């Protein structure tokens, strides 16, 4: 029995309130969706148009849908943390057990970093990078779909514990050793952490390689590197960091798995293991990762500021250098996450100084954005509001970061709520607001109609007010000595009031999020009033606006010739963008289900490894490899779209554009 099922037993099935609840919710949702699709008879359509699609626009949308679902889960976890900390004072121990509370904040971190932010980022990158560089697809459509489905497999694994096992990692989002070893975390929780991150990490690595290949090798003729839009530049730097650091994550998690599975002693407390090495390695990955999260958002801000100030971006060259500077410095500062572990003054001083240097390129960017806005004709529409919200918030968060970079200060504030407030300020204010700005900015391109402006403004104000109401108390609490991850504290500390204010902030943020959902629903209902018929609703400057909204599946009928930066602006000035030209046959990649199958095998493999069902794991490895071999024998991965079909679609789009 043990051979067949590993350590899976009947007891692993849901039997606690939250696992029954979670399983119930997930099952109901899946049944609901399945019934709906059956009712509208769209299974084949779903399979052909979306699931097996290699179109980066479709993959991009799917990434964003999954990321939104994970955002709901991550936000629920956040709410649970807030509630617990506001309630659990003195005699009360709140409503969560200590163990459960630890699992909740671990899941919150993992989901928000890996599945929400990375998901939205890859979604926007997939849709927009080919359009911005004048390409039709990524360099490898096959890697793209495989990478996406691996991300989904990881997202499933991180939620699967609700159904099987009932326990997630209770180790914090980075699963620091030796707490994450078998001695202190013997259950399946940490293994779910391990295998979901390995799976989605593999997908991320594939995406990183794919985007670098695409940006380096598939730009439109005439688009030199120094003529690329800033979003493409910052994304390129971010992807370079990804391919540098994800191998480190893969190796480190693998070593932890070897400890857990095969009794090795890399990070154990005995037989020579050195747990400090885990902390060293995981932060070598972890710090540059946060710059991966924010660099594309910096690019989005550059696009938004120049478009909505209707002025060329100031200091293009210095912005590119700043992106490189941030990327390079990000790789050599990781020790600031463990100043207090004891490396000593010299080591701490080096890393502290390097950390403060990051403020320089960040500052360069702020100055350039300000300079762009100066004497511009600023339109205070949705995307611009998110940028302005970012600039206030992020400067604050960045400054607290520079404060924490000073080792003596960090010795007081390490792992306090001050730190928690700092990184949430930079991630929410920087990365998340950037994602919101990007989604608002590019929504008309993706859907064909604009989002409702008024509701968007309400959502923005709710978010930013809610944010400050939630996190300012945390800064104060941190300075007062409150550490992070507290599931209970004494009444004598006097902290409860501030925690309660923080919960109120959470409620305001939630209203903001609900407002965004309402905005989307209302915008869909009112879409005919907000149609984007020209493809260029904001008077944009970059190539993605040269297509219809949404773009045809091949993006460009004729790959544009680029002669300067702000290529589309140039085309509009010279009147070349609506020119008719001869249509030619286009080669496009075929759909494939192999990416899905490989990820399916990866998902079952992860499950098998969690439960020690080794025969099943071997079967999945063989299955995945066979899929890859099958792919190599496939000679017909592309098909030709005849020129007549292109002409038909293009004429229809031009007619639509001209009729407004």
């Amino acid at each position, binding site marked *: 029995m043990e051979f067949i099922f590993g350590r899976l037993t009947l007891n692993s099935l849901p039997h606690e309130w939250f696992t029954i609840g979670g399983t119930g919710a997930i099952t109901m949702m899946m049944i609901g969706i399945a019934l709906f699709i059956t009712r509208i008879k769209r299974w084949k359509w779903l399979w052909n148009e979306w699931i097996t699609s290699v179109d980066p626009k479709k993959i991009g949308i799917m990434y964003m849908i999954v990321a939104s679902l994970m955002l709901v889960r991550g936000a629920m976890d956040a709410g649970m943390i807030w509630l617990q900390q506001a309630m659990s004072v003195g005699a009360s121990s709140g409503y969560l057990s200590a163990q459960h509370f630890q699992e909740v904040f671990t899941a919150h971190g993992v989901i928000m970093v890996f599945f929400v932010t990375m998901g939205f980022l890859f979604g926007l990158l997939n849709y927009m990078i080919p359009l911005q560089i004048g390409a039709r697809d990524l*360099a490898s459509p096959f890697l793209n779909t495989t990478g996406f489905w691996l991300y989904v497999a990881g997202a499933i694994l991180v939620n699967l514990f609700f159904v099987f096992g009932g326990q997630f990692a209770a180790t914090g989002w980075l699963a620091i050793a030796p707490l994450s070893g078998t001695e202190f975390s013997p259950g399946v929780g940490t293994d779910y952490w391990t295998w979901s991150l390995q799976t989605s990490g593999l997908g991320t*690595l594939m995406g990183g390689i794919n985007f670098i290949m695409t940006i380096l090798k598939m730009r439109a003729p005439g688009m030199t590197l120094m003529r690329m839009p800033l979003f493409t530049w910052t994304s390129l730097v971010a992807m370079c960091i990804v391919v*540098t650091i994800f191998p480190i994550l893969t*190796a480190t998690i693998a070593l932890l798995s070897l400890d857990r599975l095969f009794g090795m*002693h*890399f990070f154990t407390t005995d*037989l*020579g293991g*050195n747990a400090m090495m885990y902390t060293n390695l995981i932060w070598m990955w972890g710090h540059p990762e946060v710059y991966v999260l924010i660099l594309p958002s910096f690019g989005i801000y550059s696009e938004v500021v120049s478009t909505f100030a209707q002025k060329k971006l100031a200091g293009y060259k210095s912005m590119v250098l700043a992106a490189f500077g941030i990327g390079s410095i990000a790789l050599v500062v990781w020790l600031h996450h463990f100043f207090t572990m004891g490396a000593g003054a010299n080591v701490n001083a080096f890393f502290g100084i390097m950390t403060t240097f990051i403020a320089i390129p960040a500052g360069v960017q702020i100055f350039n954005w300000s300079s762009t806005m100066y004497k511009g004709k600023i339109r205070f529409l949705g995307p611009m509001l998110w940028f302005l919200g970012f600039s206030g918030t992020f400067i604050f968060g960045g400054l607290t970061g520079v404060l924490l970079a000073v080792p003596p200060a960090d010795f007081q504030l390490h792992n306090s709520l001050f730190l928690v407030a700092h990184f949430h300020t930079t991630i929410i204010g920087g990365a998340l607001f950037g994602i919101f700005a990007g989604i608002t900015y590019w929504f008309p391109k993706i859907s064909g109609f604009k989002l409702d402006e008024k509701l968007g403004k309400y959502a923005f104000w709710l978010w930013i007010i809610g944010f400050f109401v939630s996190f300012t108390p945390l800064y104060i609490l941190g300075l007062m000595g409150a550490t992070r991850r507290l599931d209970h504290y004494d009444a004598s500390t006097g902290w409860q009031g501030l925690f309660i204010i923080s919960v109120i902030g959470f409620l305001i943020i939630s209203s903001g999020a609900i407002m965004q959902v309402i905005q989307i629903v209302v915008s869909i209902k009112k879409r005919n009033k907000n149609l984007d018929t020209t493809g260029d609703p904001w008077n944009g400057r970059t190539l993605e606006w040269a297509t219809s909204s949404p773009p045809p599946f091949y993006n460009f009928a004729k790959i544009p010739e680029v002669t300067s930066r702000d290529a589309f602006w140039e085309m509009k000035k010279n009147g070349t963008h609506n020119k008719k030209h001869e249509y030619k046959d286009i080669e496009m990649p075929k759909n494939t289900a192999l990416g899905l199958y490989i990820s399916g095998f990866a998902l079952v493999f992860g499950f098998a490894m969690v439960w020690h069902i080794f025969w099943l794991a071997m079967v999945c490895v063989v299955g995945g490899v066979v899929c890859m*071999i099958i792919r190599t024998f496939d000679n017909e991965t592309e098909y030709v779209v005849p020129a007549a079909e292109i002409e038909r679609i293009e004429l229809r789009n031009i007619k639509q554009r001209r009729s407004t």
Partner: protein
Amino acid sequence: MSIKEKQERVTLGFWIYLMTDLLIFAVLFAVYAVLKESTYGGVTIHEIFNPPFVLVETLILLTSSFTCGLAMLAAHKENKKMMVPYFLVTLFLGIVFLAMELYEFAHLISEGHDWTKSAFLSAFFTLTGTHGLHILIGVIWITILLIHIKLRGLTPTTLGKLTLAGLFWHFLDVVWIFIFTIVYLMGGVS
């Protein structure tokens, strides 16, 4: 877009992948360097190092890299008569290398020096074992490509894939130089 442009793109992508693989090895090397003294009273590298055995292993792998290069040259000249035997020799040498490594592992395990006995042994087995796993993947990959050639002949696409497999094989030999030096030779100095 021409076949040459496509090949260049694929080669670039594979090269980036190879660099990520190199980084995985870098982490394993770093871990080995940090943990190599943590023997917990058990065997040290000096005690398990069998100099002539490792030298033979190294020369075998080096020769296989050489024959792989010869095979690739023949492939580019579309000389299938020379290419296939050179690849077969490469595969044979690779398998011999693996067999020798497995023998070394089996010997250690039978003497009770397995990876659960100390951090040093964990690091040793993981670093050398990961390299061996890559060699195994290389052997399987080249075999599949030879099957491709048997079934469909030497097409430009297959030639491109052979080039990548050759790169992979050479890269593994480069990594072995450092395993040989840092694990075995430096362990021989005490």
